[in-house]
């Protein structure tokens, strides 16, 4: 630390800088055109280190997975700018290349160097999920993609603005390559607005405190985050714990894909080694290295929720991703299904960490995004596409049962209301309900998964596809808790109900009017041995119809039958 900074100024500065990122979030949410940003908050903003790209401060309302991934986007721009060699105030880089910036191609990243008194001080960045970025299918979730080109157009880091002058040629290229140019233009304007606001707020902050104090504050916050992380690790026992879980398949061949982690704690450091994980696969469940590292960050932050969103947290942690694995796939491997892979990474990290610190870790959540599309043409020829993600149970914890029907750990997005879907598309939900017997048993059982049964009302019928997981490998419990029910998908044909050969992945399912699909999502894993659950709690679950009598006795014995009905 060069300049010493007093602890009060540091506390105030920490709040002020977090606020800048929060205000950038708010600016984009308000201005964005597409509901994925405006309502689901699939976006993020922050301040990043001038030479390393490390996250200094990040907004609190953006999507969790971005907290770790944004620094890779900034680093990519730092490298590109070094190639150009003429980085200037007012430059803005834009790109969506997931192999260098993480996540998937729908996420458009804008990175802007922030100069003070003619010197580079830090970077500001904005990422937002655009509604459509070209590719084979609208919305860019192509379950059959075998390379990135089938997923979307790929934009490497290019200068959208030079010295404050926007290059409209690039905007023209972008707008010609999306099916929804108005939406894209609205989102782009919102992101530019957020960066402008960030610059103004930084100007004010530096005018008030001076660059040396702010820089010292940023350094101190990084060190503080590191200290916090080290003190958390120090409190845990030394040792090495392993966990392996599986993806059902890659959507092309029905072969299980192992994801393995060895979590090692030595003093105040931790290593997460993913050796033993499956190699790069043909289908879109690969992820790029930045995504893998960011995912480790998400898992860590769920285990230690009070840690700040700052790169200092990761300094005591080494993430080892083997070369050539599905967690470090090179361009142009398809990565559109990255959500499934990173959810499984989080699961194995939880399972391993729970062996070290059972009370700090929750059991596995339902572990699949279940992207279900039902689409067709109306009588008047107008196309319709109902595309949504579905919820499931969260894992039990040392404090309580898991949450019923929650959202995925990597997201905070809510599900659209059934009535909005029914009003917009020719479908009817016959069930939108909790799924009995879906929770993993335990002292604190997992949360319940859900059942969604959807009937096609359109005379012309419809075609469905599903991209899901956990059809062959159930979400695991921790600390002796049991596994939850697996994902189950069935669709109706003239000769009765069928299941996909690849369990939870299938496209081209033709449905007639009156036929239905039924998606039953996993619950969460249980926490602690089932024998530790109070018989009254078991009896209550039975009385509520969440647990059948047979399953209750199988997992918990028959003590519950002697409980008086409440």
């Amino acid at each position, binding site marked *: 630390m060069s300049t010493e900074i007093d602890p009060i100024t540091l506390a105030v500065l920490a709040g002020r800088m977090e606020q800048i990122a929060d205000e950038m979030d708010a600016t984009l949410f308000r201005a964005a055109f597409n509901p994925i940003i405006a309502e689901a908050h699939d976006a993020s903003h922050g301040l990043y280190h001038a030479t390393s790209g490390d996250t200094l401060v990040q907004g609190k309302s953006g999507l969790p997975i971005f907290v770790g991934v944004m620094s890779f986007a900034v680093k990519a721009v730092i490298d590109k700018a070094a190639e150009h060699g003429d980085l200037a105030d007012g430059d803005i880089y834009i790109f969506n290349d997931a192999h260098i910036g993480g996540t998937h191609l729908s996420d458009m990243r804008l990175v802007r160097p922030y100069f003070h008194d003619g010197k580079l001080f830090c970077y500001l960045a904005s990422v937002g999920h655009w509604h459509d970025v070209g590719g084979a299918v609208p919305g860019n979730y192509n379950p059959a993609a075998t390379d990135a080109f089938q997923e979307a157009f790929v934009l490497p880091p290019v200068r959208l603005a030079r010295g404050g002058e926007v290059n409209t040629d690039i905007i023209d290229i972008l707008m010609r390559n999306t099916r929804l140019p108005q939406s894209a233009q609205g989102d782009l304007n919102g992101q530019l607005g957020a960066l402008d606001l960030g610059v103004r707020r930084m100007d004010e902050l530096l005018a008030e405190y001076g660059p040396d104090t702010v820089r010292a504050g940023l350094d101190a916050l990084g060190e503080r985050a590191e200290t916090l992380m080290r003190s958390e690790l120090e409190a845990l026992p030394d040792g090495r714990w392993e966990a392996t879980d599986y993806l059902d398949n890659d959507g092309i061949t029905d072969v299980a894909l192992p994801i393995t982690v060895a979590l090692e704690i030595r003093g105040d450091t931790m290593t997460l080694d993913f050796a033993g994980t499956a190699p790069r696969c043909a289908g879109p469940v690969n992820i790029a290295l930045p995504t893998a590292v960011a995912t480790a960050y998400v898992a860590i932050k769920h285990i230690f929720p009070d840690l700040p969103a700052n790169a200092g947290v990761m300094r005591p942690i080494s993430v080892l991703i083997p070369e050539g694995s599905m967690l470090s796939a090179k361009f142009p491997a398809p990565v559109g299904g990255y959500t499934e892979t990173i959810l499984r990474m989080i699961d194995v990290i939880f399972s391993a960490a729970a062996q070290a610190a059972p009370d700090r870790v929750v059991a596995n959540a339902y572990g699949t995004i279940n992207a279900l599309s039902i689409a067709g043409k109306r009588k008047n020829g107008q196309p319709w596409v109902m595309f949504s993600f579905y919820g499931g149970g969260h894992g039990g914890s040392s404090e309580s*049962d898991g949450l019923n029907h*929650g959202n995925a750990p990597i997201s905070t997005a809510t599900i659209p209301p059934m009535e909005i879907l029914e009003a917009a598309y020719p479908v009817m939900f016959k069930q939108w309900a909790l799924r009995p017997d879906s929770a993993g048993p335990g002292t604190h059982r997992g949360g319940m998964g859900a059942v969604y049964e959807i009937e096609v009302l359109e005379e012309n019928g419809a075609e469905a596809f599903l991209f899901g997981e956990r059809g062959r490998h159930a979400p695991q419990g921790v600390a002796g808790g049991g596994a939850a029910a697996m994902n189950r998908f069935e669709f109706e044909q003239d000769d009765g109900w069928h299941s996909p050969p690849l369990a939870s992945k299938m496209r081209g399912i033709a449905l007639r009017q009156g036929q239905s699909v039924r998606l039953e999502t996993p619950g969460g894993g249980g926490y602690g041995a089932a024998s530790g659950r109070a018989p009254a709690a078991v009896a209550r679950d039975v009385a509520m119809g969440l647990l059948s009598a047979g399953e209750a006795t199988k997992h918990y014995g028959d003590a519950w039958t002697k409980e008086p009905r409440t």
Partner: protein
Amino acid sequence: MSKMIGVDVGGTFTDVFVLDEAAGTAEVAKVPTTRPDQSGGFLDGIGQRVSDLSEISVVVHGTTAGTNALLERKGARIGVITTAGLRDVLEMRRRDRPRTWGLRGDFEPVVPRDLRLEVPERVLADGTIRTPVDLDAVRAAAAELLDQGCLAVAVMFANSYANAENEARAVAALREIWPNDHVSASSEILPEIREFERFSTTALNAYLQPEVSGYLDRLELALKDGGFGGEFMIVQSNGGVMAVDTASRLPVRTALSGPAAGVIAAGYIASEAGFDDVITGDMGGTSFDVSLIAGGKSMLSPQTSIDFGMVVRSPMIEITTIGAGGGSIAWVDKGGLLNIGPESAGSTPGPVAYGQGNDRPTVTDANVVLGRIDPESPIGGKLERLDVDGARAAIKVHVGDPLGLDPEAAAEAILRVANARMAGAIRLVSIERGFDPKRFAFMPFGGGGALHTGAMLAEVGIGRAIVPRYPGVTSAMGCVIADMRQDFVQTINALLDGLDADALASFMQDHVDRGLALLDAARTTFQAREIAFELDMAYVGQTHTVSVPIDVTVTHGTVTPPTQVEIAKAFDDAYLRAYGRLLKNGVRRVMNLRSAVTGKRPKFDLGTLAPVGGSAEAALKGQRRVHFGDQWFDTAIYNRLDLPVGAVIDGPAILEQPDTTVLIEPHLRGTVDAYGNTVIAAKEATP
């Protein structure tokens, strides 16, 4: 019959504001809130100022009875009858979670699963009845719920906003057999698309009905027994009042009753004093509540969550809360950073200085140690004197020692961090609404807000603050000021091009008829009646709607509906304001109609509250050493209520009144305006 009374029942205190228009006087009282039955404190508070209840023409009540029943899960045992396949909507919510990080926590809805019964029935999104309701099944469900001891029943069917027939038939059958009035249908409570929000609002309403209507009945009876013969009204979350029988039927509309009244009063006081743009900051024991008033209008949000998963969808004054109140605890984390909250000592045990067993320092303790709060006269009168030494010791141990600061510096540090958080909330609320906070005035109210005025000016860059004459009873005063208002909603869900103009007109007329009937039934006089319509609209493909105000002529209660062209133009204007550009060839959709029928109640002259006579010299009650920045200042202490109109007080100074302390920092100047408010600004900015 000339007295108007506002009563705000808060968590700690019950505030009473008595306005005697004929005599031109106003009085306030503050008594402890009684629990669990708040009616004791309510009547005690009124009794302290009015001996003969027959002198009272109006009693208006801001209540937390509903909110508390929700937060503490103390509503009634109720049942739900719903569409086959949908019994779990209340429990599944919108697939959210309590906190972003940690994945911990679970959720129990207010109606357990075995009291949520399904019946065969189905309406499609276009209003077609696919399956008529099975009334025998409804009756059987009712019998089971009664058998289970349910006191209220709510009927919630899919798509009932589009066609309420199945719900109406079910409710009619239920009303024949249900032993009390507590039967409600989701289409009666909220005929709006979005099943979770509609079901949740309906269920929470039913959950509150037995409790809140019983409470209000008790109050009304006690008032009448005391000779009261006037009108008894309740403040709604939208900042308007409603008759007590409406409140008994729709208790869920009282969810933010008290805080809403405070914002209404703040807006009125500010605009009378010449400030149409004001940000209010209400600092209580556990929280700091921020609200924004632009152009004299407070912002309304369409819904709020009382707690995780407990959504109430009905228009509410928008209030943003952060956990930084007087009782918020200051602590140093393992990384050596000073934090404030979210843990709070609340009002019991309260700050260390209260001497009631808490030994961790709070924001109030910092104010006490720095001499900003008079230890000899604690608010509310429960304590003899505050324990300054205890507060200093706690700050030293928990903040000073870990950070290497002396207790005074540590106390300043606590305030700086707390102030920074409060200022952050103000900035964020403004930015989210698209406003620059610098053009607003700041109005602190509640017991603690006026201690932090100078900090808000400095941190946010606001030019001036206005401290109302009675900041500790603002909500009670708001009760007396608020207009009578009813909100209605109806989902339309049609393309503008294909809009059924007659159907829209008849919904508008129905809303107007029902709203005016409620005004007619009130025994209050109104200066004017206002009717406002808005349409929630969007382009097809967008789920985010914008509120589109529609100019509609209403002559003698008859609506002249708007044309499609007028609606299109209004949409384009509103959309441009929100997003800056229109969508080329976009198809416009009308989602909901929202109507508000308001009876403007006569406003009292704030001049009534202004001080008469007096002088600054006479108001000066002494000197105290108060710490600002890094030194102690000999600081003048004034009796605030004795300062005359026009008095100019230079900082450092402290203005004290029974329930509030106003801090004027060394570089600031306070001026008493014509209504007795104190306007605070930098010395060089005031002539």
